[in-house]
Each structure stands twice: as C-alpha cells, then as structure tokens.
C-alpha cells in the first residue's frame, strides 16, 4: 500500500505512515463490525440449539441487535464502586480491548495483505495473547469485591496453564513449517496432504496437535466449557461483576475479538489460512480471493466455538487444571519430541 501512496506524490516516509494508518483502520474497523455481527451469530446459534428464536426484533431477523445493545451501553452511566481502585478499575477494560486488537497486526489476509510481515509473527501472537490475562486480573483486583477477585485468581492460573501447552503445540507447527513468519507457515501448508489438500491438519502427526489447540484455545479465551472466570452459578459474572456501561462493553468486545483471533489462528496454523482447501488449479475455488477463504474458515471455527458453548457443560476447576497439566502438557511435549525426531530422520537426514 506504500507504493499506492507514493504514486500520489508523497515522500516515502509520509506514504509509509499513511499506509500503516490506513492498514490499521482497515483491520480494526471491519473487526469491530465483525465482532458486533458475530455476537448476533453466537446468540442465534445458541438459541437454535436450545430450540429458541434468539434475537429477532431489532432490524430484519434481529440483525441490528448488537448495534442497539451498543447504543444502549453507550448511553448508560459508568458506575465506579466507591471501594474500587479507580485508576486500575478504568484501565483494565482498556487493556483487554487493546490487547485483543494488537495481535491482529500480524494476521495475514492474503499473500501481500498483512500489516506487519515480521519474522517472529507467531511469537508475537503468543506474546500478545499472554498479555490478555492482565485485563482480567487487574479488573478483578481493582473491583475490590469478592467474586471478581476469585475470578481474577482463576483467570491467572487458567491462562498460564494453557499457554504452556499452546506453546508446545505451536513449536510442532513451527518445526514443520521451518519459520515463525505467518505467511511462511501458510505457504508451507500448500499441498501438504498428498499434494492436493492444503493444511497441516491432514498430517497424521499434527492432527492431534490441532485437536489440542482447539481445546486449548477455548480455555485460553475462557469460552464455555472453560468459562470458569465468569461462571454465573458461582461468581455472579466473575471479573465483570462491578462493571457497567462502556467499560463493560469494552470487555465484551475484547472477549469476542479474542475469540475471532483464536479462530483465525486455528485456520492459519492448521487449515491453510488464506489458501483454498484444495490445491487444484482447475477448480473455481482456486481463484476465489484468499481473504474470502480465510473469513470462511474463521466463521467455520466460530460455529464450532458456539456449538461447544451450547452443548458442553462447564468443567470443574480441578478438571480444568488436570486437563491442562496432566494431559495436554505431557502429550504436547511428547509430540514435540516425535515431530522433531521424524523431521530429523526425513527432512534433515544428513
């Protein structure tokens, strides 16, 4: 995009600045729109699985429900509890929201369409997603109230536990792709299965990794069945209990932006990202633009997330910890050894 602005007669620096700012806006604004729509989709899927109608009043088929909700919270009063730590109480939702947007900088929407095509793209995503816990923990502590505090404790332990196994799963993918660059990882999946299907998921050694990554990403975003941080039957609303109005809405938006990010990561790391599913150049799907494939895959994974939310009962906290530390950690560690051993024997055999 820098070239485009340069062709308008701007100097390189100015063109770069304009290109970056418009790139950020091109990601952030559609993302916010997508979050609003995906909340509606989530409620609709959830409703139809419970044999309900879901939102159907505002706009055609209730499509404008999220915007009505947004307007409503915007007009509400921000209530700050008198015992709360005021500064941190207000910063926490901002942190959650900002961090949820930050990671999208390295997500590739096409061969060229990536805001920051950096060498350590995947590490960047891991680093940013490990910051997500601070919004929750700080909110829980600053509220100075029992239930948010319990929620903060749970969130801190839960997110660290699952990040460990996510790290090992990502190492397997990186070993196979040979790069940390997101576009490099996608390119490495071209024709991975018998030269026809694109995606690491069709690899026998990496398929179990994908299953574990999907479950870990549910835990990492604190979605059902791992939503113990806001378990309404025990903790009222968890860390959000004391929040109202826009500060509450920022948590809400950040949470869904994170869910979309995890769906995008599932698509990019295991399902070929912006590549079409089949690597056959006489099929019409081969010429569909990459971002459409990526959005389709993200939507598919979001459907799985909603499906799980509607059907699977919530885990008990000790079950959650057991799954993370006693099952996922040893298994993913074992697969790191297995994958690197296999690659050592085949690809890097001296």
């Amino acid at each position: 995009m820098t070239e485009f602005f340069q062709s308008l007669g701007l100097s390189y620096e100015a063109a770069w600045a304009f290109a970056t700012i418009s790139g950020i806006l091109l990601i952030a604004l559609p993302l916010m729109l997508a979050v609003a729509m995906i909340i509606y989709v989530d409620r609709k899927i959830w409703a139809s699985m419970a044999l309900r109608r879901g939102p159907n009043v505002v706009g055609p088929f209730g499509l404008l429900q999220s915007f009505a909700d947004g307007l409503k919270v915007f007009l509400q009063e921000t209530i700050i509890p008198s015992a709360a730590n005021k500064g941190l109480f207000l910063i926490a939702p901002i942190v959650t929201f900002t961090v949820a947007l930050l990671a999208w900088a390295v997500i590739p929407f096409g061969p060229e369409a990536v805001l920051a095509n950096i060498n350590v793209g995947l590490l960047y995503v891991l680093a940013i997603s490990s910051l997500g816990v601070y919004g929750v923990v700080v909110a829980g502590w600053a509220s100075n109230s029992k239930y948010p505090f319990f929620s903060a404790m749970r969130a801190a332990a839960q997110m660290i536990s699952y990040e460990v196994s996510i790290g090992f799963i990502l190492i397997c993918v990186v070993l196979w792709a040979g790069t940390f660059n997101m576009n490099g990882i996608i390119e490495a999946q071209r024709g991975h299965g018998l030269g026809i299907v694109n995606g690491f998921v069709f690899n026998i050694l990496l398929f179990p990794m994908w299953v574990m990554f999907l479950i870990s990403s549910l835990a990492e975003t604190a979605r059902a069945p791992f939503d113990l941080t806001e378990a309404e039957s025990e903790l009222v609303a968890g860390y959000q209990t004391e929040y109202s109005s826009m500060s509450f809405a920022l948590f809400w938006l950040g949470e869904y932006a994170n869910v979309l990010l995890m769906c995008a990561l599932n698509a990019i790391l295991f399902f070929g990202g912006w590549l079409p599913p089949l690597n056959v150049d006489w099929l019409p799907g081969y010429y569909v633009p990459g971002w459409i494939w990526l959005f389709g895959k993200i939507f598919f994974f979001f459907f799985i997330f909603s499906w799980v939310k509607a059907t699977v009962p919530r885990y008990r906290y000790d079950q959650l910890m057991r799954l993370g530390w006693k099952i996922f950690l040893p298994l993913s560690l074992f697969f790191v050894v297995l994958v690197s051993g296999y690659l050592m024997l085949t690809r890097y055999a001296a």
Partner: protein
Amino acid sequence: MIQTFAFYLFAILVIASGTLTILARNPVHSVLWLIVSFFNAAGLMVLVGAEFIAMLLVIVYVGAVAVLFLFVVMMLNIDFAELRAGFMKNFPLGIAIALVLLAELILGIGAYRAGALKLGTPDGTAAPMVGQSNIENIGALLYSEYLFLFETAGLILLVAMLGAIVLTHRERATAHRGHQNISKQVRRRPEDATVNTSPEVGKGVSL
C-alpha cells in the same frame, strides 16, 4: 529520526516506570509498573534488531513471571501503617544495599571509560551470520558453540523445579475428603446414579 524518537520514548518509559516500581506505595501498583518497564525494554530490544529476545522478554517475563508476581502480591493483605512502621528498622539495610549498588555503578562506568571489554569481534567466532534471521543465529550458536552451557542451564532448572516440587508436595491419603478420582467419575453411568420409578399419585417415593 523516528528511531531516535522511539529510543528516547522507550528509554524514558523504562526509567520512569522502573522508578515508579520502587516508589509506588501499593505493591500491586509496583508490579504493574514493573510490567510496563519490561514491556518498554522489549521495545528497546526491537530497536536494536533483537526481535527474538524482545518477544521472549514479553512471553517469559510479562506473560508468565509477572503474572505469578501479581498473583502472589494481590493476595497480600496490605497494612500501610505497618509498612511505614518497618521503615526505620530496615533503613540501615537499605542504605547498605544502595551503597553496594552505587559502588558497582561507579566501578562499571569507570571500567567502561577505561576501554570496553573485548567481546565477540565482527569477524570472530561470535560474528553474526549474514542473511539469517535472529532465531536461526541464536539457535545455531546455542546448539553448537554453547551446547554444554545450554544443557547445564537446563539441568539446573530441572533440579530447581524438582526441589520446588519436593518442598511443597504433601502425600495425601487417597481416602481424603477432597480427593477426586477422575477415572471413577468418568466411568459413572446414569444408570448407576438414577432410578426410574412411577409412583402412584399421592404415594411418594421412599429413598
């Protein structure tokens, strides 16, 4: 131009948040300032072209270590009066540590003025490999030149981890009330736990 600006921005923020870490009254605020400081240090690492180290700094220190700090500090019951009361008692120790740090600083600056230590020269064994990314460079060095040091570090960490587990592990009887037997819970079927009865109206069920 923009690099200089970014450097001074990050450097000032590191120093300012580092200072606020030790000045903040509330330990939780201290930890949060420490996190800001880590984060800006990562920014400095990006500026010198060590993006791998920068990401590791954020993942390891901000993402894991500082969360555990916060976890512990949050649970402290802070009594500000007691904090101030302990000031005079710890004052001599604090002064002693400050003096040691000052001496180190003076020594360090003096040694730097006398001429920098000869580290890796650009054409020596530690020369960066041209055309390779940060990660490949570090990997190639770590697993060839410094393999034994690397393995030793891993061994030390393993021993430390085992030590921590041994120190905190308590043997619990399996009949303990809080003990969860997961496999027993998974094996449980609805038939084992429920009975289907059709009682007459007004009779009720005896349990």
